[in-house]
């Protein structure tokens, strides 16, 4: 199995790096992404004190529509887009003053962001690195969060969200490109009600790696 993977990589990498150089697309585009996300241990506070929630890595899916600026555009080379993303993570453990306890339930985040990416096009290559940032809103849902079987929270909250991202576009054709990227996604601290207690606020800091396809029109 390992050998097969190595062979595929050995064959694909030269193709990716040495493929034909396509003219940079300009105009509208749409795309879909899939990837994995890791939520950082979330420091949370309520009126009883501070506690931490740790989540297992989960999946990320997103869809984008946007506009590629023309090469040489006075505003800079890049693209602006509207992105909807869905992230899901399972609560794994909770740490209180008494120690760490097993936990369960899902935390989902649906976000809508305006992103701007600066793209560094090259004349004789088909891949282009990009870096950018986004701003928008996120709806985070605590779905049946439990600690040692006891209910913690089953609520949702809206928060302001932002995202920093970087990656590489690889032009497969003049209109189709593949995108491998990293996203750091965070929000203002959402506030959730507890099932049997006061409301708590928690951090939401997420790291994601995504692979996607974008089609230009």
């Amino acid at each position: 199995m390992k050998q097969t993977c190595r062979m595929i990589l050995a064959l694909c990498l030269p193709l990716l790096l040495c493929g034909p150089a396509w003219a940079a697309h300009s105009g509208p585009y749409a795309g879909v992404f899939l990837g994995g996300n890791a939520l950082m241990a979330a420091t949370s506070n309520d009126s009883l004190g501070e506690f931490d929630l740790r989540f297992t890595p989960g999946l990320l899916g997103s869809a984008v529509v946007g506009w590629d600026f023309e090469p040489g555009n006075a505003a800079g080379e890049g693209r602006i887009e509207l992105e909807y993303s869905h992230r899901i993570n399972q609560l794994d453990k909770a740490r209180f003053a008494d120690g760490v306890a097993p936990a369960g339930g899902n935390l989902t985040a649906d976000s809508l962001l305006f992103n701007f990416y600066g793209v560094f096009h090259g004349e004789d290559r088909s891949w282009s690195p990009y870096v950018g940032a986004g701003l928008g809103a996120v709806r985070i849902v605590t779905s049946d969060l439990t600690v040692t079987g006891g209910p913690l929270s089953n609520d949702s909250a809206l928060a302001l969200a932002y995202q920093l991202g970087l990656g590489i576009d690889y032009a497969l054709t003049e209109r189709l490109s593949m995108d491998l990227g990293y996203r750091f996604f965070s929000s203002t601290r959402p506030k959730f009600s507890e099932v049997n207690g006061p409301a708590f606020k928690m951090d939401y800091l997420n790291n994601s790696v995504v692979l996607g396809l974008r089609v230009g029109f």
Partner: protein
Amino acid sequence: MRNLLWSGLVMAVLLSGCGWSGSASRPNTITPLTSITITAAYSTIAKGTSVKLTATGDYSGLFTRDISNQVVWSSKMPAVANFATNVPNRVAGQTPGSAVLTATMGGVSANFDLKVSSATATTVTITPANPSIALGLNQQFTATGTFSDGTVQDITFDATWASGNTTVAKVSNAADDNTGGVATSPQESVTGTTTITATFGAVNGVGGINGSTVLTVTAPVLQSIAVATSNNISSVPSLSTVSFTATGTYSNNTTLDITSQVNWVSSNANVAPAPLFSGTLASTQTVTQGTTTITATLGTISGTTTLNVTGGNLASFPALTNMTVVNGTSVPISVTGNFSNASARDITGALKWSIANPTFANMTTVSPNRLLIRGLAPGTTTITAASPGSAGQISTAYLTVTNTRLNSFSVSPQAGLALMAGTSGRLTATANFSNGTSQDVTANVTWGSNSTAVATVGTVGPTGERITGRATGATTITASFGNLILTTPVPVSVSTRTLKSFTIIPSGTVSVVAGNQTSFTVTATYNDGTTVDITSDVNWTTGDGNVAILPDPQNQPGRVVGVGSGTSTSLTATFNGQTATVTLNVQ
């Protein structure tokens, strides 16, 4: 590009947050309680005594917690053993027998079997025996009963407590675990002894077995020491004199100034040596910039404060030059020091001065930076100035006191002064001697005003005798020196105008270097457009003495020395109820 990719990957790993950070403070109130365990000091108690039960909750096997105050306690045999109302987890034996006690919480419960015996108390012992406490402190006593069946039991909660002399100490008979058997000697108590008694088994106050001990209340003892600088500042320039006070707080909550009793220590003598007590304060002179902790200790009690010294280290000061002063007259002396941070300031008052032969001359400190040398007898001696610190600079010069005859003296300006009411001007006097020399004798002249309602004479400063206009009118200022009287008194006219405004110059935001002296002036503008320098007439203040100070407001009005670099404060001049302010940024 490769660097960019690697940066992203590294950032992703760093931010992935695989572990916990910080510490949690919230108790886990979510994990379900699965069992309760009840424990007690005794499983059998004598009738009339009590025991406290402890309920420990086990939460799903993850952790345990004392839930004694959260469970609901109940007795299946209340006639045998029942719970107290003020301490819910304390159960008292009512009659001999057995009782099942239950603790319940969240649907989980546990039982405890308690037996009540018919044993009677044979002795009561109070511990500690014959203790002493300082006035204002408390003493917890414990009563232990020995019973007829040979058992021994803590009956502190069950005994009746009494103090034989309540002016010395009282003892609490409250039926709770925190104050029962606690003897107190509040502030209004007196020192002395009292007998503390614990009685068990009395019926309506009659009978029972008791035990006693003697409690001695002694004079209050020191509990803590608060150290403070006399002006509550923590930052000063080098070569500054800083005074400290030590205030002790005693066991009866009284406070006392113990500045003279404590032992003073400085953690860094290079920054400032240990303060020495003199008069009412303990003072030290800062040497180099840095931080030191000043500690005051009395017995085993200590208090500290931190002193931050800024303004650079003294690099040098100009060598003294030989001086001549006429016998019976005074001359000022002034020294400016150069510091390691390129600042310079007047250090006259910071140097240690000495005159080799004090029969020829002496020195008088008029204000922090104004020093006068007065000739006492003809002759030649030496005057020495030394900077503080083990590696301080020393400079010596000859001081000659001459014996010459006074020929004449004059006052300047001869034309006199034209003052606004409330403002002041300066006059100086110069004497001419038979040996052909002349000398400023302003400090030695006797000044007077022919109408103090119009103008008054004040103190002598570096720029002359201060004449202050009081009300509209005209007067003359007289002056006499030795056996001479000024033949033509100096005219002074005082007028009154309405103050329009006044301004500190330089204005706005002014940057000053820590340790450097910067001079400000104030110019007043009157309704007729007249402008007058009122630098000496305003009251100067800085907003925060830790940021900037006025080293000698009496003789150096408007002179500021920066202290706390990187900070800012206000410099305010107040005159006739109005204020003007500039901002000082200390670098």
